[in-house]
Structure formats: C-alpha cells, structure tokens
C-alpha cells in the first residue's frame, strides 16, 4: 500500500514568489493534515481537513497561506507571496478519522532566498 505522497520534495524560490505543495493521502483516509516543521523543532499543525472541509485552520497565516482539498482526496497548500521566514519543511499526514493514527509523508523542504 502506498504511503502519503508529497511533491515536490525540494523547492527553492526567491522571496515574493508563489509556491505550491501537493499531497496525496493514503487511500481511504478522510482526514488530512498539513504541518510546518522548522529546523530543530517539532511539527506544528497548519490546517486539518475532514474530507473536503477545513475544520481547524486556526494556525494557518491566512494573509499569505491557502489550502484546498476540493474532492476530499488530494490537497494543495499554497504560499503567496513567500517570505524568507517560510523556509521550512512542510509535512502532510493523513488518518482514518481524527482519532486514527497519523501517517506522514516525506515532506517538502522549502528554501526561500
């Protein structure tokens, strides 16, 4: 069974440019999470989806970040415009319901120059 798939694995952009990350969760997992992991720290939740509905986006900086999960399967996280401080690893995870174990993808490492 395939795990959580994320692309790209690495992205280097200049500040003020837009960037998008894609995540395909494990088949059948209706709950999807986007986490931000800064260097030397644990991941922090950005947004959680139950199917296509964003049920917890309190930590998402909505002035520049947006996310969507239109059909309740794969999801895209976007930053526009990117800032130097956005350099981090963006992790996607999925679970079978909010109480299920969370399985993480390999992450996208973003570098903003």
């Amino acid at each position: 069974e395939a795990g959580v798939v994320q692309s790209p694995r690495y992205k280097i952009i200049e500040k003020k440019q837009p960037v998008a990350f894609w995540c395909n969760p494990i088949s059948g997992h209706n709950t999807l999470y986007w986490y931000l992991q800064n260097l030397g720290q644990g991941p922090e939740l950005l947004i959680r989806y139950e199917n296509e509905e964003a049920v917890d986006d309190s930590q998402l900086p909505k002035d520049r970040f947006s996310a969507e999960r239109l059909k309740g399967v794969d999801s895209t996280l976007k930053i526009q415009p990117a800032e130097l401080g956005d350099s981090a690893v963006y992790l996607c995870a999925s679970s079978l319901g909010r109480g299920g174990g969370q399985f993480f993808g390999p992450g996208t490492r973003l570098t903003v120059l």
Partner: protein
Amino acid sequence: AQSVAQPEDQVNVAEGNPLTVKCTYSVSGNPYLFWYVQYPNRGLQFLLKYITGDNLVKGSYGFEAEFNKSQTSFHLKKPSALVSDSALYFCAVRDRVGGKLIFGQGTELSVKP
C-alpha cells in the same frame, strides 16, 4: 493547554547499551501519547502510542515506552541500541478535541559503534 517537553536535545549511547529518551507531558484529562522517529530527509514514522491500558507499551523496531501518570512522563526505551537507531525522536500528545498532534522539540539520538 496541552504540551509535551523533551528535556534533552541530544542523547549519546554506545551500541548494545540500553537507551532512554525522555518525555514529559502536560494535559487535562487522560493523555493520548505518541512517539515518532524521523530519519534524515524522511517523514515521521510512527513508533508506538499509549491510549489506555498497560503502562508499558511495545512498539516498532524493539522500542517500548513507559507511561507514568504520577510523574507525567512517557519515556522511550530500548534494551539494546543499534547504530541504525540514530535519528531524531519526537514525543507527541494528541489533542482530544481536534485530533491534531502537539509535538515536543525532538531529541537527537546518536548511537556509536
């Protein structure tokens, strides 16, 4: 607010010796506790969890963790460390309302031959 703390940034162990990676938690009510491992350039991998029941939880790769309610701790242990256990270890507590994971800052485990 729920939180976990990992008091050691780094733990060094000789191969074959027992290892302990410490974690303490602060939650209201009964905690749902997890340990994840992260290898370089890879996503987080689930090791084990405590929901209820026996205080000693066994997980993947020979790891186990002991839940201690009086000390509010959930230390990760392994009787005999391997060089391949060298990685970054995260303790986490699951928010009982929203389901998100709240991570500690991580502990770098280094196992030397």
